[in-house]
């Protein structure tokens, strides 16, 4: 167990060294959410305070999934991903390493985005403990989600395209711009199935002290559970690849 955790940590550090400045990570992970936030700030400087939690969550999902997706996609393309499978580490260790790289990148993104939210969006922090947990668990869930999406793809389909197909609709269905309570019941059920919703709800509680649908504890619990599920599904996808490459 300890050996697996250490090797997962080495994989994460290697990914950060190698892919930190890769174009997909920078453009989709940092520039896209920043431009999005700027667009809203310019359109309505007074009304953006309520958007701050959603924009932080959006930055996290784009940052973490871009990192985990880009690292796997790039390594599969050049064949170096197989080096990890050849190494004496279980598929759990490989998946955790890839997820961990995304988590660390997510935390770095949050170090940029939270001050932006506080300084430019005038968001005030109400519950720092929930903020810390929300950022950590959101990064874990989103990174594991990105890892899973990339690993289930076979063939030459661009994983970033698939990631965007999943991420972009989430922006509009997770309560970032439109409150979940104003959704019809069907869409509220759909929203509850989206990872981003839980991050937005937990961050909303941390900054605004209120939620749309999901209270903070269930939201944090769902993110932890979801992250573990996608991590498990990722290692399963890796094992399946060994059987049916």
């Amino acid at each position: 167990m300890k050996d697996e955790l250490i090797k997962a940590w080495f994989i994460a550090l290697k990914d950060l060294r190698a892919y930190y400045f890769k174009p997909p990570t920078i453009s989709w992970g940092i520039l896209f959410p920043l431009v999005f936030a700027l667009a809203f700030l310019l359109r309505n400087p007074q009304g953006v305070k309520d958007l701050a939690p959603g924009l932080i969550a959006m930055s996290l999902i784009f940052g973490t999934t871009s990192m985990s997706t880009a690292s796997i996609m790039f390594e599969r393309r050049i064949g170096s991903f197989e080096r990890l499978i050849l190494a004496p580490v279980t598929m759990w260790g490989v998946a955790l390493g890839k997820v961990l790289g995304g988590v660390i990148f997510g935390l770095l993104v949050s170090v940029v985005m939270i001050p932006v939210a506080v300084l430019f969006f005038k968001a005030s922090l109400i519950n720092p403990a929930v903020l810390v947990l929300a950022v950590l668990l959101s990064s874990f869930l989103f990174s594991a989600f990105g890892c899973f999406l990339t690993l289930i793809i076979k063939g030459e389909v661009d994983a970033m395209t698939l990631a965007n197909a999943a991420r972009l609709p989430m922006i509009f269905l997770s309560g970032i711009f439109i409150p979940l309570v104003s959704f019809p019941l069907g869409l509220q059920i759909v929203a509850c199935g989206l990872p981003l919703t839980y991050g937005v709800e937990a961050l909303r509680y941390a900054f605004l002290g209120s939620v749309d649908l999901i209270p903070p504890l269930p939201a944090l619990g769902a993110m932890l559970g979801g992250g573990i599920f996608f991590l498990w599904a990722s290692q399963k996808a890796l094992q399946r690849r060994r059987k049916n490459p």
Partner: protein
Amino acid sequence: MKQAIEVHSLTRRYDDLVAVNHIHFSVQEGEIFGFLGPNGAGKTTTVRMLSGLITPTEGEARLLGFDLRTQTKKVKAHIGVVQDISNLYPDLTCYYNLIFSAQMYGVPKGERGKRALGLLERFDLLEKKEKKFLTLSRGMKRKLTIACALIHHPPLLFLDEPTLGLDVRAVRMMHRLIKEVNQEGVTVFLTTHQIAEAGKLCDRIAIINKGKILALDTVQGIRNRASAQPSIRVSFDRNEGLSPELSALPSVAGVRTQRDHFHLSAGNLPLALTEITKFAEGKGLIITSLHTEEPSLEEAFVQLTGIKAEKMK
């Protein structure tokens, strides 16, 4: 002698395609074992199974005494694998690529730097230490990939087409390295589609085609197994139109005309030499060159597999 690899009925299917079909072989500790076959024969699939990259559909294998199915992690920890492409991390430096390999293979922290520098020096890459992998030449990339596979001192090394795409100089250097590594006690499992490479490097060779092993023996043993006849390479001062007459000589089994000489298969070598000399005298020809040749590994390979040697180049 102990077995480094024991394989029984190993099989790999991809849907309807049987890539490796119930193969059996063993590799002795300390030898260079060659897996020779054309592209698509099942060489790489075998290496991928034995290195734990893919799971076998059927069959058993033990590597260094560890069961491939139940002790996969132990197998992986004790082997080094160089795949058919140089697949290190392009944006990382040569040094960090080695360090990362050391980390993944559990080399103690205090040892990693020392071993990395030692390998860089040994493989003549010390001055490239801080250069990114992507900036290296093809030969250097290959060398660093092998160095990474050796960082944890594996007793068994898999080399999948180690000289693929290298120029003549780099191929020679690679052959020297493989011999050196082997002399230090590392068992080498080498796959290649180059007959000359297998003949030059390997102690024993398994010839594989369409997923099945057709022959397994020493290089000399494989030559002897084939019923190839000795041959004579001869040229005269005038070669035009001689082929039918040479074919008619009683001891000559076949004639191949090449650019400036004839390649004769001889059932009885001394008799054929006498007949050729008499033939030249009778026709007033001067023999400008005459060589006798044992059946080559290439000829034996062609006989055993039915594959034209040109397909292997």
